[in-house]
C-alpha cells in the first residue's frame, strides 16, 4: 500500500513500535511451554508487525522486507517441521514421535525439545504465509 501523504507522526511511531512487537512475538513463541501462546499466536503477531510497516511507511518497507522473502520463510518453516518429523524414522520410531529420535536419550527431554522446535517452525511458517497472502492481495500479483 503506497502512502498517499507523508505523516511524520505515523512514520516515527511505526518504526519505533515494530521492533517491540517482534520481541514480544518471539517471547510468546518461545514461552509456549509455560504460558498460553505458542507458535500460531506468535507467528500472527510477527505478521501483524510487517503489515503495520506496509500500511504506515509503504514503499520503503518493500525494500527492507521484500515480498519474495515471505513465502521463502514459510516454505523453510514447513520443511523444517517435516524434517523434525522425519528424524525419528531413522531410529525405528514413528513419524513425529519425538521420544525415539535419538536412541539413548531420555524420551521426556526429547519430547520437550521436540515441542519447542516444532513451535518455532510453526511460528516462522505462519509468519511467512500471512505476509505472503497480504503482499499478493495488495500488489495484485505485480512486482
Amino acid at each position: 500500500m503506497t502512502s498517499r501523504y507523508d505523516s511524520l507522526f505515523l512514520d516515527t511511531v511505526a518504526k519505533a513500535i515494530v521492533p517491540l512487537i517482534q520481541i514480544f512475538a518471539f517471547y510468546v513463541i518461545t514461552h509456549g511451554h509455560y504460558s498460553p501462546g505458542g507458535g500460531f499466536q506468535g507467528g500472527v503477531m510477527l505478521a501483524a508487525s510487517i503489515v503495520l510497516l506496509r500500511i504506515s511507511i509503504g514503499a520503503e518497507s518493500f525494500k527492507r522486507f521484500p515480498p519474495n522473502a515471505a513465502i521463502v520463510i514459510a516454505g523453510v518453516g514447513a520443511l523444517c517441521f517435516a524434517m523434525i518429523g522425519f528424524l525419528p524414522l531413522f531410529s525405528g520410531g514413528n513419524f513425529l514421535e519425538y521420544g525415539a529420535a535419538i536412541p539413548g536419550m531420555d524420551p521426556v527431554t526429547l519430547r520437550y525439545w521436540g515441542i519447542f522446535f516444532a513451535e518455532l517452525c510453526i511460528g516462522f511458517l505462519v509468519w511467512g504465509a500471512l505476509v505472503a497472502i497480504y503482499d499478493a492481495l495488495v500488489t495484485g500479483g505485480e512486482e
Partner: protein
Amino acid sequence: MRFSALALMALMGAVLLWGARDLPHRGDPNSPAATHESVSIYYIENAYLDTHTPNMVTAVLADYRGFDTFGEAVVVVTAALSCLLILRMRKPGGGAEGS
C-alpha cells in the same frame, strides 16, 4: 430486507435452538467431552509426566496431536502459494486473464 428472507432466517434459528436443547449446559463438569477418560482426562493428567510442559494445550497441539498440526501447516503454506500463483497468472504478451 424482504419478509420471506426474514421468515426463513427465523425458521433456521428456531430449528437450531430446538436442536441445541440436547447439548450440555454451560460449564457442565459431567458432559461427555469432559469425562471421556481416554482422551481429555488422559491429556490433563499425563501431559506433564510425558513431556515436562505445564501448558497442556501446547503439549496436545504439538505432541499428542502433532499430525493434525502438520497437516494444517501444509494447508497454510498451500493457501499462501495459491494466492501468489492465482494473482500472477499472465497471458504471454501482457494483459491479465482470469481463467
